[in-house]
């Protein structure tokens, strides 16, 4: 494989990782506020269909993305309303929505199956694109791909360096304490769930208008992406930078699978396509091991030197959810 092909492949990894970054960062914002939005998988498929449809009808890629974001915001409003206001199980509502949105997308998308639509091409950035290696990989992307890269740092900066970001951490960790300090917990949870949902809603059109152009019904190949994004949110420990790393890592592994497929033809392609999923379980296992009781007991039996080393390793991998994740907030 020549250098150019590898660079092209890596640029493809950044491009195909972009929608997962958008979805996982959106979910991170929502979960940081204490709301699990489990509707991701269906939401991405529905926004992908809607965005493509609007883009065909209006011949505007921008309106396509806007429609996707609106669908995301709307579905997430249902999640927010049922969990924050009606105090129903977030997991239950999210699961129902993920199934229903998917079926709805296939039903409504029937007439536009296989139609030609606008495609968002890459917009190389002058000067930056000339940098060796970095240029062709990072700076010959589509506008949405740049936006997703920018979003990583924006979300990180917002959460960890600003006052409202600190407040956001508060309502996810100790909502009662944040409430005492004057935070409107319910309103902020609504805000972040809907904002996060809108970002997830951008991921769908990014597929149908750029990464995997077109709408082909059930074989569009988007089923499963949302679940991956949810797992990556956990893998990333609710930290935007680590979450983004997880998203690009996933895209990289998928690309690797494709490359291997052409050399190892004896493995059925379906098997390599799902290879990321066992890896997902393994990584979740790795980040969670440190939280289990028996690991603590096992560590206690090890000699001091090794124990400290292992503990450090586990701690660096461990990810802990926001303390109030999934629980409704009651004003006492």
């Amino acid at each position, binding site marked *: 494989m020549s250098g150019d092909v590898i660079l092209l492949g890596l640029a493809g990894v950044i491009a195909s990782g972009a929608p997962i970054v958008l979805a996982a960062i959106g979910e991170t914002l929502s979960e940081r506020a204490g709301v699990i939005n489990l509707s991701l998988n269906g939401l991405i498929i529905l926004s992908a269909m809607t965005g493509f449809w609007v883009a065909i009808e209006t011949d505007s890629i921008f309106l396509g993305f806007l429609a996707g974001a609106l669908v995301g915001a709307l579905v997430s409003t249902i999640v927010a309303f*049922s969990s924050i206001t009606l105090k129903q199980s977030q997991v239950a509502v999210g699961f129902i929505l993920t199934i229903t949105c998917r079926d709805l997308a296939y039903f409504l998308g029937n007439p536009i199956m296989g139609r030609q639509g606008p495609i968002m091409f890459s917009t190389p950035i002058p000067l930056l694109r000339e940098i060796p290696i970095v240029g062709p990989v990072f700076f010959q992307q589509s506008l949405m791909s740049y936006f997703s890269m920018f979003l990583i740092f924006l979300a990180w900066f917002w959460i960890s360096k600003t006052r409202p970001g600190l407040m956001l951490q508060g309502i996810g960790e100790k909502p009662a304490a944040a409430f005492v300090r004057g935070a409107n917990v319910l309103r902020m949870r609504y805000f972040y769930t809907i904002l996060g949902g809108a970002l997830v809603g951008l991921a769908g059109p990014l597929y149908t208008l750029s990464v995997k152009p077109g709408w082909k019904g059930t074989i569009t190949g988007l089923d499963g992406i949302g679940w991956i994004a949810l797992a990556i949110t956990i893998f990333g420990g609710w930290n935007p930078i680590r979450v983004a790393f997880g998203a690009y890592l996933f895209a990289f592994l998928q690309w690797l699978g494709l490359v291997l497929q052409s050399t190892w033809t004896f493995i059925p392609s379906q098997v390599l396509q799902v290879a990321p999923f066992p890896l997902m379980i393994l990584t979740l296992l790795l980040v969670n091991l440190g939280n289990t009781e028996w690991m603590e007991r096992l560590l206690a039996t090890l000699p001091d030197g090794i124990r400290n080393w292992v503990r450090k390793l586990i701690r660096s991998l461990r990810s802990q959810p926001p303390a109030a994740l999934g629980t409704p907030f009651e004003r006492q």
Partner: protein
Amino acid sequence: MKQAQSRSLSALFQIGGLILAFGFVTIILLLVDADPIEAFRLIWQGAVGNSSRIASVLVVWVPLALVTCGVLVTFTAGLWNIGIEGQITLGAIFTTGVIRLFLDTPVSPVFVIILSILAGMVGGAIWAALAGVLKVFGGVNEIFGGLGLNFIATALNIGLIFGAWSRPGVASMSGTEPFPEIYWLPTFQNFRFSWYSILLSVIGLVVIYFLLQGTHFGLRLKAVGKGIKSAFRLGIPTWQHMMLSFLICGLFAGLAGALQVVAVYHRLIPAISSGYGFMGLMIAMLINYQAIWVAPIALFFAALNIGGIQLPIVMKLDSTLSGVLQGSLVLFILLMQGVKQRVLGKQ
């Protein structure tokens, strides 16, 4: 008196949810320029229009009732067994494997069928146990462990259909080579359903009803589901109960998968679980986890599924409309339940 009042109030909110769901689907149909009344009529006709359609509804009812029974057990223990789809698939794989093992042997087909069904149940239980081990000992949330295992099960299934078990000459999405008829579970006359499958489902329904309502085990499971810490303090071995609930659910899912092979398809096909696992989860939520309602609501969902098949044929609509209707029913009834609690709580 008060109880009767609150019960009728509950029913009122449920009917409200029903109306909202049908209203929502009506709007969706108007959006695509379809006649809603015609669509609903078609679904109804498609489900009960003639005896072979009713038989098809029963064919779908069997796995739906079984998996719903299974997830009731995990739900009672407070677990979200999303891995149910993979557990159905593994059941089907194990069953197919056993039948293939005995294909050209003189062993009695009756014995082979029974053995293969039992193997299917074991297969489902093994896959469920994996999700359980990941949850209990690995700290991996059962939703993500289960989802990952679903995808792996699908890969395994497709890998077998296109690899080791592929049809001689042409491996294809149509599945493995169909078994000789002696290995089929006998069906009723020329219809597609088998009384044996129906019987197994009814036994499953009865077992689950009594297990959850009338045994100490059911009571302890409920305690675990309500709160692990307090159940542990009460002296209930919590992780053992969680594992057991996974195993029982896996047995039911495996049985559903086994019957899909021996009674319906007579071979392994790529989409062998047909999404019935997820539908079972939805039904369980819709009936508020009460075992007594499994049979009728599973029948209703099965009827919607079969009825929906007519939509693309007659009206050029996608059959996923049935899924939209099922999903919005569950969603709106759940929302109305929340509204009811809010309204009553305020008084």
